[in-house]
């Protein structure tokens, strides 16, 4: 696991580009350590963080690192609340605070294994850097399956190479859920060596967890939960674990082995007022 420097650092936005319904924010981070796929950072704009009728956002926002190349970190954003809205508006040259890389990353498949990358919506982000990492580590065979709600959102699929797409409204690729595609793959003969890597909304992750559990396929799930700090201090990002008790998404995750959970529930809820949006 890559350790984070013990201080937030001021980084400069280099690119803010539209990708369908999403924004891709690139920030120069030449001094930062190289993150591992699945790790995240806590981001806050240096100016304009707070204010307005609600005086929000106040806390930094946890965002998966979507890519890291040439000293730049890439983040995939969807404008769903005051925090993501402010980040989506940032122009090249503007500065943000970043703390990271944080959290437990994905573990690559064992030798001979095949990686099945399964993403939903903005959950595509950590799978892009995972695909880069699999490529770097001697071309580990893999297949990417991505699901989106409509045509605008399916543009997010271009973050990965050669992804198969599903859309809720049938506007692109398979008309239906990405987990339909996963089920087909898992039921085909050559998937006995598969390891599933998934990130997306809770209902999708729960479906992935159940499909993999039924077939004894190992699965690593990248979770999301509203969090205040990102480094284990606030205990706010609690997710119920198998056998009782809670795990902290920030330090016990965000990537967890699917066996650690009995069920993936919706802990985030609607974006209003929660420190995730």
């Amino acid at each position, binding site marked *: 696991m890559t350790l984070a420097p013990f201080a937030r650092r001021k980084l400069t936005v280099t690119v803010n580009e539209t990708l369908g319904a999403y924004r891709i924010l690139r920030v120069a981070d030449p001094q930062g350590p190289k993150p591992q796929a699945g790790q995240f950072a806590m981001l806050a704009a240096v100016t304009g963080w707070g204010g307005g009728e609600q005086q929000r956002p106040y806390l930094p926002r946890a965002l998966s690192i979507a890519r890291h190349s040439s000293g730049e970190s890439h983040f995939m954003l969807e404008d769903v609340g005051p925090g993501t809205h402010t980040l989506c508006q940032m122009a090249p040259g503007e500065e943000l605070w970043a703390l990271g890389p944080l*959290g437990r990353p994905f573990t690559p498949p064992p030798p001979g294994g095949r990686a099945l990358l399964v993403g939903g919506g903005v959950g595509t982000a950590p799978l892009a850097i995972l695909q880069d990492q699999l490529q770097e580590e001697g071309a580990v065979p893999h297949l990417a399956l991505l699901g989106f709600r409509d045509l605008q959102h399916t543009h997010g699929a271009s973050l990965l190479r050669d992804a198969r797409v599903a859309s809720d409204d049938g506007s692109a690729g398979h008309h239906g859920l990405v987990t339909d595609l996963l089920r087909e793959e898992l039921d085909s003969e050559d998937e006995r060596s598969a390891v599933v890597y998934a990130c997306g909304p809770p209902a999708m992750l729960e479906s992935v967890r159940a499909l993999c559990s039924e077939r004894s396929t190992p699965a690593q799930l990248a979770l999301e939960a509203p969090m*205040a700090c990102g480094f284990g201090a606030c205990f706010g990002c609690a997710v119920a674990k198998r056998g009782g008790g809670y795990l902290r998404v920030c330090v016990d995750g965000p990537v967890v082995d699917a066996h650690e959970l009995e069920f993936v529930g919706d802990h985030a809820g609607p974006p209003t007022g929660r420190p995730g949006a």
Partner: protein
Amino acid sequence: MSVEFCGLDLAHPIVNGSGTFDAIAAATTFGEDLLKDFPFSAYVSKTITLAPRIGNRAPRLWEAPAGLINSIGLPNKGVEHYLKEDLPLLGALSTCHGSEQRGSLWPVPLITNVMGSTAAELCALLDACDPHPQIAAFELNVSCPNVQTGLDIGADPAQLREVLSEVRSHTSKPLIVKLTPNTADVPSCALAAEEGGADAVSLINTLRAMALAPGARHAAPAARWLGGGTGGLSGPAIRHVALAQVAAVADRVTIPIVGMGGVQSADHASALLAVGASLVAVGTESFRDPLVGATIARSL
């Protein structure tokens, strides 16, 4: 800017608020060096209880205007686990800050925060912890309802005085009482703590607060957002409440005060020191910037 507090020699006056900085989790995120150059001059543990607690169900957080409402529920693995697993690490913290005066690392004393719903529970916690030399002092979390009256122990001066007089003899180490702001007369509670034998008081704890689930105002009864129903408000929103309460308590007691509430900068810390605090704790701001305690200490 070294300070003496209840017989403890501290590198500077900035400590953490209980439950706002997990040194062990931070070391896994930022590396072990953090424990040798700790941002705070004393480390206040999260609240430890006799039996393990898993904490409240999610959601636990709500972002408020200039603040945060939390409903965490004091998760901890119980005093036995704390003494066996956590103490070796937490009892060996140090800081480089201020070392130029001494030419070596300053030790960062450990203040163990404990909570019980009866005096007997608090006595049992102190009995278990007191023999351990790594623990330099105790902070009593008295924001816990009395099982008989339902009233927070720390909200009623008479009750607080009675509990303190029972637990006082169970340790000779400094005893800090963390006062609750959710009561009519905080200075009287502080005085009761002093009369009961407390060596210091710390304030303010979070202000009781609530958030409704989005759209809930159209439902009857309205659904509460937080898993615990209500939570505690912290952050800049409570800074001036803290300033007023610390000033009022300083007028009534002679024992030292740990002031806290919405501190984000050296100016905010200086204000609390100016109205009578001996130490200042940083809490929610550490969530935004984990190094802020050290930054404030340097700028004082």
